[in-house]
């Protein structure tokens, strides 16, 4: 099983004092771990229906297609509550994959955490 670490942290958005949940992921998201990891995110989304989410992918070196599918699904659930999702600091190869599959058309990508906060 590929190693993966993650944590959730709360912060407030710069403009509107709106709640933001930052999900920081580290490692490789693949078939061996993504199905165990994803339910935790769903739970967090359900607990924070008033919050936007920033997904920090700086330390993610690989994501399989299922992970992309989960991000797309998280986006649907979060945006259904009128909140935003931003992907932050993704490595260039991850960013390129997300660009090819077209996820960047619906989820904005930020280079820095500051930019992500301003978009969230």
């Amino acid at each position, binding site marked *: 099983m590929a190693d993966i670490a993650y944590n959730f942290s709360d912060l407030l958005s710069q403009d509107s004092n709106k709640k933001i949940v930052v999900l920081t992921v580290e490692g490789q998201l693949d078939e061996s771990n993504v199905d165990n990891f994803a339910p935790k995110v769903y739970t967090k989304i359900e607990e924070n229906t008033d919050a936007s989410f920033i997904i920090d992918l700086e330390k993610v070196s690989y*994501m399989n297609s299922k992970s992309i599918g989960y991000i797309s699904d998280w986006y649907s659930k979060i945006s259904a509550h009128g909140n935003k999702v931003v992907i932050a600091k993704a490595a260039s190869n991850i960013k390129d*994959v997300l660009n090819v*599959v077209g996820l960047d058309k619906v989820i904005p990508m930020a280079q820095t955490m500051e930019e992500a906060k301003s978009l969230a």
Partner: protein
Amino acid sequence: MSIELILSIFLAAVPAIIWSLVFLKKEDPNSKLYFLVFLGGTLTVLPLLGMQVGYRAIINANPNLDFVGILKDLSIWVLILYAFVGIMEEWIKFYIVKYIDRTHPELITTTSSAIKFGILSALGFAFSENILYFSRIWMNFGIQELFAPFLFRSTFTVCAHIMFSGIFGYFYGLSKFTDDFLDFKKWQGKEVKPKDYIRHRKIMVALGLGAAIILHGAFNIMLEFGLVIPVIIQVGLMFLFLTALLKRKSVNLVFILADKHKSVMDKKDIDVVLEYMGTQFDRGQYNLVNEIADRLLKRDPDNNVAKLFKSNSLDKLEKQKNKS
């Protein structure tokens, strides 16, 4: 060379030219090489001629032997027709296509080009066979008896030959591009084992050759029994099948036989995208798959699996459009 033979060559050329215009585009860059395939097809009649000469030699050596009667009594006349005509003719045409593909693999880059190769070898064969038929009828029965056979052979017989070999060509193309077709299936989540690649190659050729032989045999037997209407229906159905195949985008898809353009993405990242495309394809998100394929092909222009996703999505979208 007798005048009958020379004029028979001209007569046999008429359907060959007309049918080649129906199925082949004038501006095709491989026109000259296609002509060589046609010439190869004309030679395929020689072994059959040899067998016929051998058959006549047996009959002449045993004038009292009712060879056909014996075979009919044994009820294997039908089998002989299948075996002799169907298998031999289709097998020889298959070898022409296979030989030229082995020596010039760069020529068959699409399933439709494999179909065209089949069609050309069939046209070459039908051309030679027609010369024999026309000249024999002319010499034995006179020119007045030639009109009906000329009309029937030029339309239905030549068309039937084209269909048998065209259908074979389609399966030959599926066999040649096995790796890409199976990778395409694999990325849709279907189980593909390493041994499936070898098996798929063999099965496709066997299916194509088997279909060509059975269709050819059925055609010959129906003609033998004078069942003209079923023959016309068979040829019509095969014509519709082949023209529908040639319209499909996945059949006209150009496969790259060797990577000429370097990809700007890592293989593992490309695999992630292909897997994602497979999931979306299964969900019927054909527009999305088409868009993803376009973006992937900008980064990896020689990716045949991405091309297959694109062409199959376009085919599905076209089908949906036609339904609505």
